[in-house]
């Protein structure tokens, strides 16, 4: 029997073995971590080449094949998510080298790498899965690693936030598992292909609703977002960047995937999803306006942006779903990159000036200018100013909503944009005001090599907007929506 090495197998198992090795050999953890990341990114690039050349590729593990065995499958959307994870993960790891370098952070350094590599295993697994039970297992791998990263700093606030995250995660997992079980009892299949074209009976809709609520808890869709702000705001900066940039995207991706194979059973349910998203956009925006600390503001902006992605999903109703997913996918990519950059920049600002109280940002003579510039660039993409990737995502959201005549979604997007301008302006005002500083300005400009990684991410969030057309045509490879697989 020959063993065929596939990039799909590598991109799941390399990080898994890396995580184990980094746990067993804590002294070499950073080295093992980077070696693992390089290998995994190589596997993703290899997979991207295959997908570009041949369209969607599949692999039955162990030669069993669905419905009995586990299949892996990669199309344009999967590879885009894998690439997002690799690129953002790599740059966040570089930033982590600097922000976890202190002697009092030895413990954090020791556990960061195994947890992060385990997280990578789970996320890559989610993006390559083709059956809902495999998705459940991978989502749980992500959840356990994510809670570990949340409490990495060991502070009381972080532990309390991590515990609340754990409660939400456990309950979400139970709902998801029940949904998976009920889908099986209805259809007798768990693989995506077996779900295609299933008649939307009441029982099946109930099962899917359970799955959706479970995922909404894990991705923190309003009104189930209660755990997110504290968890993301109290985690240490690289962990926040991973949690906000990447982890919530995994559950969002599952929603997109399931909608591909099992279209939403009714227009009303889709509108309800859009309304929850709209609630998140408004409520997240208002709370970000009221936040006193920089990282809390950024965390509330995540709640609002996740809402926006669900609005994009619902923008043109059930008929428009075959196009709407692209707007949602673009916003997922844009938010993943920009939010990671923003959390890293916020962490740098906090490191340099010693606090992150927004009101006192203009009272300090120390101006970490490059980190502030990075923060502003990331904000440009999150607000959606051209030519950033965030702009392209929002533009395609509104274009689709207008074409379908759904002006209420345009209104929600506009309101959300205005709110984001307002809350980010609170931060910019602190960056740009100098009249309240009592000490001479400019004694410390706070340029450091550590700003390189977040700045690269922020520049990518802006620059990818210019490459939106190739990105869009890439995620369409394998026709994730519209054409029956």
């Amino acid at each position, binding site marked *: 029997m020959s063993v065929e090495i596939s990039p799909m197998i590598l991109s799941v198992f390399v990080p898994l073995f890396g995580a184990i090795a980094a746990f067993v050999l804590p002294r070499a953890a950073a080295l093992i971590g980077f070696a693992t990341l390089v290998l995994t990114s190589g596997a993703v690039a290899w997979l991207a080449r295959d997908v570009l050349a041949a369209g969607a590729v599949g692999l039955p593990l162990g030669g069993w094949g669905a419905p009995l065995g586990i299949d892996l499958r990669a199309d344009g959307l999967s590879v885009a998510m894998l690439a997002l994870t690799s690129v953002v993960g790599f740059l966040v790891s570089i930033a982590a080298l600097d922000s976890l370098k202190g002697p009092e952070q030895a413990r954090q350094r020791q556990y960061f790498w195994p947890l992060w590599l385990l997280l990578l295993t789970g996320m890559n697994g989610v993006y390559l899965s083709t059956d809902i039970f495999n998705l459940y297992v991978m989502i749980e791998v992500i959840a356990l690693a994510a809670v570990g990263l949340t409490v990495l700093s060991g502070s009381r606030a972080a*532990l309390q936030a991590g515990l609340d995250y754990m409660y939400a995660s456990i309950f979400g997992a139970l709902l998801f598992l029940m949904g998976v079980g009920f889908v099986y009892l209805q259809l007798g299949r768990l693989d995506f292909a077996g779900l295609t074209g299933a008649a939307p009976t009441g029982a099946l809709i109930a099962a899917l609703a359970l799955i959706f609520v479970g995922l909404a808890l894990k991705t923190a869709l309003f009104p189930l977002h209660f755990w997110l702000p504290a968890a993301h705001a109290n985690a240490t900066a690289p962990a926040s960047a991973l949690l906000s940039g990447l982890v919530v995207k995994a559950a969002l991706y599952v929603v997109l995937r399931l909608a591909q194979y099992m279209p939403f059973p009714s227009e009303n349910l889709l509108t309800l999803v859009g309304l929850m998203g709209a609630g998140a956009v408004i409520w997240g925006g208002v709370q970000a306006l009221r936040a006193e600390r920089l990282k809390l503001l950024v965390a509330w902006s995540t709640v609002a942006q996740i809402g926006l992605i669900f609005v994009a999903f619902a923008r043109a109703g059930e008929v428009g779903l075959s196009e709407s997913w692209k707007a949602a996918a673009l916003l997922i990519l844009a938010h993943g990159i920009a939010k990671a950059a923003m959390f890293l920049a916020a962490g740098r600002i906090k490191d340099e000036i010693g606090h992150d109280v927004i009101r006192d940002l203009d009272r300090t003579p120390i101006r970490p200018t490059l980190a502030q510039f990075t923060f502003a660039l990331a904000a440009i993409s999150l607000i959606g100013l051209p030519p950033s990737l965030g702009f392209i995502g929002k533009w395609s959201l509104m274009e689709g909503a207008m074409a379908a005549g759904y002006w209420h979604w345009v209104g929600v997007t506009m309101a959300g944009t205005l709110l984001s301008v307002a809350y980010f302006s609170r931060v910019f005002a602190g960056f740009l005001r100098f009249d309240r500083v009592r000490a001479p300005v400019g004694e410390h400009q706070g340029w450091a090599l550590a700003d390189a990684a977040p700045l690269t991410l922020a520049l990518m969030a802006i620059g990818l907007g210019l490459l939106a057309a190739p990105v869009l045509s890439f995620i369409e490879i394998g026709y994730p929506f519209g054409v029956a697989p």
Partner: protein
Amino acid sequence: MTPDLIYGLTGVAVFGIGLVGALSAQDRLRRVLALKLCSVGAGFLLVVGAWREPPAAPDPVPHALVITGIVVMVSATAVALALIRRLQTLEATDER
């Protein structure tokens, strides 16, 4: 009333008791236990769903799902308990 209906309603009831407990509990440990109760209810429901009128054998796949669910739940509970213990230690040193 068929046996699967009786067991099914019991599963729903156990899940409901757990849910109410998880939402209303103030104590951390109590909330973890309530979530465990939820998971027992959920597992119960899936096992009942796999039941077939004898002599037909029950469907083994939902059983496999429940076993995986139990394993996941054990690890999640362990993490939650570790967090609670650490929090209590921190709170005890803060008060002293």
